[in-house]
């Protein structure tokens, strides 16, 4: 067979596995990427024909997702997580070391195509960084000896399956289990409780619990479910948002790794309440290592009669769950972008109204909830709403899982009642000499050490789970720059204010950090912040300026110290721009040089 025939046979297999459904385009392209290390143009044409979708859609998808490529990557594709906490753990020097010993530049593929090396957005291993990924699988706790080992394995072309398992060992450290993590649970408990009490009555308990979405937005769960349940359109869908992309967050990783049954059970009782037969889990690409495990959990549940038809003997209650992998795009954590992605398209947030509860997956009523939300509903179904509402604050009931990372003695998972003071959390995790805390990740809030008596709550400091600690040795601008770069990299580019504005913010911030900023540049920075924040299409744009705005509010004096004292300062090196002129005129006297500093 020719190469083209081999490819066609391969693509036919992949298409058959995806049931020739265009909505499974990401699954198909992920398989092609894994096989050919890129998406070849011939494959795009073939898939376009077989799936009956325009090739422009496939190209758009390939270019949108970080883990899909138009050109071949190395047979070993090595990525370094570029979150600020990785950087604080020496990531930059490790990356440089890897580049040196593997003889490949960052962002490039080695000539023999054996290895490619690059940065990637936070991989959700912040408690065990600096972390990497090789062909999609996590490499936590990297250090020089490990890089040496990895480089040797690569040079010897050892298949990934034969690499030492400890290289891939992800640990789940729970330092402080609380309300939910300490609850006993047996498979089926919540479904039985739901049917024993009644569906309407269980929804009333969820309502009473006042549970709000744990993904960050804090929308009331019972209201979402009820709105979905009363829609006339069918089928209705349940989607579990496991696209935990906010840098610093890894609590969903822990839940899926250790408590998957309770998450799937939450989805199942949601399905019973809203009248759904089909659930989807959108699992972020960085959590590929969980895929097989979760498939096994699902299969066990089917074997136990907890998924499939006539669940636990309830006539007419049929429900099953399919796991779909993402392909590297932070924006797909946004519900409507996630739905677009699940439909095989670039993850561009939809225009609202209509909300996805009314018009979601395949334009049908859809509940999209966070992993932790489903986990909580499982226990609310068992214990009742009041049990949950008794904990926390009136506006933020229950508990919250935090993924703590950064400068502290005990990074890991902590569960706190809402309303807990930040100072208490810092003391528990062993944080000392704190300069500031980033609560809720880059899209959240930076607080200085003067604000540590504030509380964890939707009405004060809200977090989807990210909690990063910075001590006095840290440079605040390293943090802001990392976050601002992140948003420019992850902006989907749909709307003008965010597409252009996030890149303008990045450049403008760099100008100030590099010491080329003057007072007027600070004004311009603030001005861009306001346009991006107030005029963007979705939450990414609305929050992209938060790192600048909240650090500026906390430490304005640090920004002022960065500014030049002159009224005007060019953003480029004046003298260097004259180099060609000097060369042409063969001059190098003092008159042929310009001073960078312009006097007022």
């Amino acid at each position, binding site marked *: 067979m020719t190469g083209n025939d081999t490819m066609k046979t391969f693509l036919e297999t992949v298409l058959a596995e995806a049931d020739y459904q265009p909505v499974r385009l990401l699954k198909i392209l992920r398989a092609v990427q894994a096989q050919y290390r890129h998406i070849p143009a011939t494959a795009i*044409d073939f898939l376009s024909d077989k799936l009956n979708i*325009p*090739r*422009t*859609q496939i*190209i*758009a998808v*390939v*270019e*949108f997702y970080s883990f899909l490529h138009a050109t071949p990557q190395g047979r070993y594709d090595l990525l370094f997580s570029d979150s600020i906490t990785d950087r604080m753990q020496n990531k930059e020097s490790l990356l440089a070391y890897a580049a040196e010993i593997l003889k490949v530049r960052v962002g490039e593929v080695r000539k023999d195509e054996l290895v490619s090396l690059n940065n990637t957005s936070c991989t959700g291993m912040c408690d065990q960084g600096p972390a990497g990924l090789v062909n999609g699988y996590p490499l936590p706790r990297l250090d020089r000896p490990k890089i040496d080992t990895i480089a040797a394995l690569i040079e010897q072309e050892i298949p990934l399956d034969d690499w030492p398992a400890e290289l891939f060992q992800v640990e789940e450290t729970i330092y402080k289990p609380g309300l939910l993590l300490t609850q006993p649970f047996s498979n089926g408990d919540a479904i039985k409780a739901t049917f024993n009490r009644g569906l309407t009555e269980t929804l009333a308990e969820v309502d009473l619990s006042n549970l709000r979405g744990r993904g960050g937005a804090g929308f009331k769960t019972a209201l979402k479910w009820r709105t979905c349940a009363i829609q006339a359109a069918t089928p209705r869908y349940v989607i579990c948002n496991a696209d935990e992309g906010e840098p610093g967050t890894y609590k969903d990783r822990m839940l899926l790794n250790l408590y998957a049954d309770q998450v799937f059970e939450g989805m199942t009782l949601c399905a019973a309440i809203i009248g759904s037969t089909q659930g989807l889990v959108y699992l972020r690409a960085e959590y590929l290592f969980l895929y097989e495990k979760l498939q096994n959990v699902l299969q066990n549940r089917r074997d136990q009669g907890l998924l499939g038809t006539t669940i636990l003997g309830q006539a007419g209650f049929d429900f099953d769950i399919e796991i779909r992998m993402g392909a590297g*795009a932070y924006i797909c954590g946004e519900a409507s972008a996630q739905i677009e992605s699940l439909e095989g398209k*670039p993850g561009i947030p939809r*225009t609202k*109204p209509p909300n996805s509860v009314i018009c979601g997956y395949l334009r049908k009523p859809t509940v999209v909830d966070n992993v932790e939300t489903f986990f909580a509903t499982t226990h609310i179904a068992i214990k009742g709403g009041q049990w949950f509402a008794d904990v926390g604050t009136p506006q933020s009931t229950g508990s919250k899982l935090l993924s703590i990372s950064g400068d502290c003695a005990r990074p890991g998972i902590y569960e706190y009642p809402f309303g807990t003071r930040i100072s208490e959390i810092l003391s528990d995790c062993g944080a000392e000499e704190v300069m500031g805390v980033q609560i809720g990740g880059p899209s959240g809030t930076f607080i200085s050490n003067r604000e540590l008596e504030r509380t964890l709550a939707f009405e004060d400091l809200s977090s989807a789970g990210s909690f990063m600690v910075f001590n006095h040795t840290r440079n605040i601008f390293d943090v802001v720059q990392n976050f601002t770069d992140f948003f*420019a*990299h*992850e*902006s*989907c*580019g*749909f*709307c*003008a*204010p965010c*597409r*252009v*504005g*996030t*890149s*303008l913010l990045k*450049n403008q911030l760099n100008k100030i950090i590099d010491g080329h900023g003057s007072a007027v540049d600070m004004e*311009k920075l603030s*001005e*861009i912040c*306001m*346009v991006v924040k*107030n*005029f*963007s*299409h979705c939450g990414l744009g609305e929050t992209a300026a938060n790192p600048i705005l909240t650090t500026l509010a906390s430490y304005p004096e640090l920004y002022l110290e960065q500014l030049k004292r002159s009224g005007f300062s060019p*953003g480029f090196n004046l003298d260097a721009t004259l180099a060609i002129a000097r060369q042409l005129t063969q001059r190098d006297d003092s008159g042929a040089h310009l001073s960078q500093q312009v006097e007022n």
Partner: protein
Amino acid sequence: MSGTLTIDDQTIPFTDGQTIIEAARTAGVYIPHLCHRPGYTPHGSCKLCTVKVNGRTCSACTFPAAEGQKVVNNSEELQEARLRITQMLFVEGNHFCPTCEKSGNCELQAVGYHLNMLDSHFPHFYAHRKVDASHPDILIDHNRCIFCNLCVRASRESDGKDVFGIAGRGIHKRLIINSPTGQLKDSNISVEDSAVQVCPTGAILVKRTGYKTPIGGRIYDQHPISTIACKKRETDSTG
């Protein structure tokens, strides 16, 4: 069903299903926009039509009109933001009005005039973009594309083709062509297609027509876009 809403204290009627921008346009009230065109699915990406509806920020081109809405359109804050967004579009691409054959018929330029834009305000990106002159009758200058998506929609919704798409992410967005080579000449586009006529800037041009109407006699040389946009029902020719 129909009703009334107010825009900047002016009461205007709307019919059921109308968006705010369409209700306004029908009533002769101009809300600046670039990605919107009557007859095509609203897109809501340029954000120039951002208005406040009962205090909430919305895109007028996608937000449904409803009874009693109080819409703020012409406030200083909104006009200032629209100016900045327009300037963002200018610095993102490479727009040189004096040498562009679309000058005078260009909506981006006309919106710039409407907002009293006197400079680009932000540093230019100097993006490296290409020109696709492969087609015998149609030219694409990617330097001038603002990703309004109008050609994508026109090709799909009006021409029944799928000639265009938008790929890439963030500042790396790019207009792509549905053809085996990626070049326009190998697509099934035809010069009569709506997709060729719909471009609000000089990114898609019909060859050999650029100077049929001399500069000075063109659409926005004669009338401001605020007047033209409210009259316009269908697509204008590129002149």
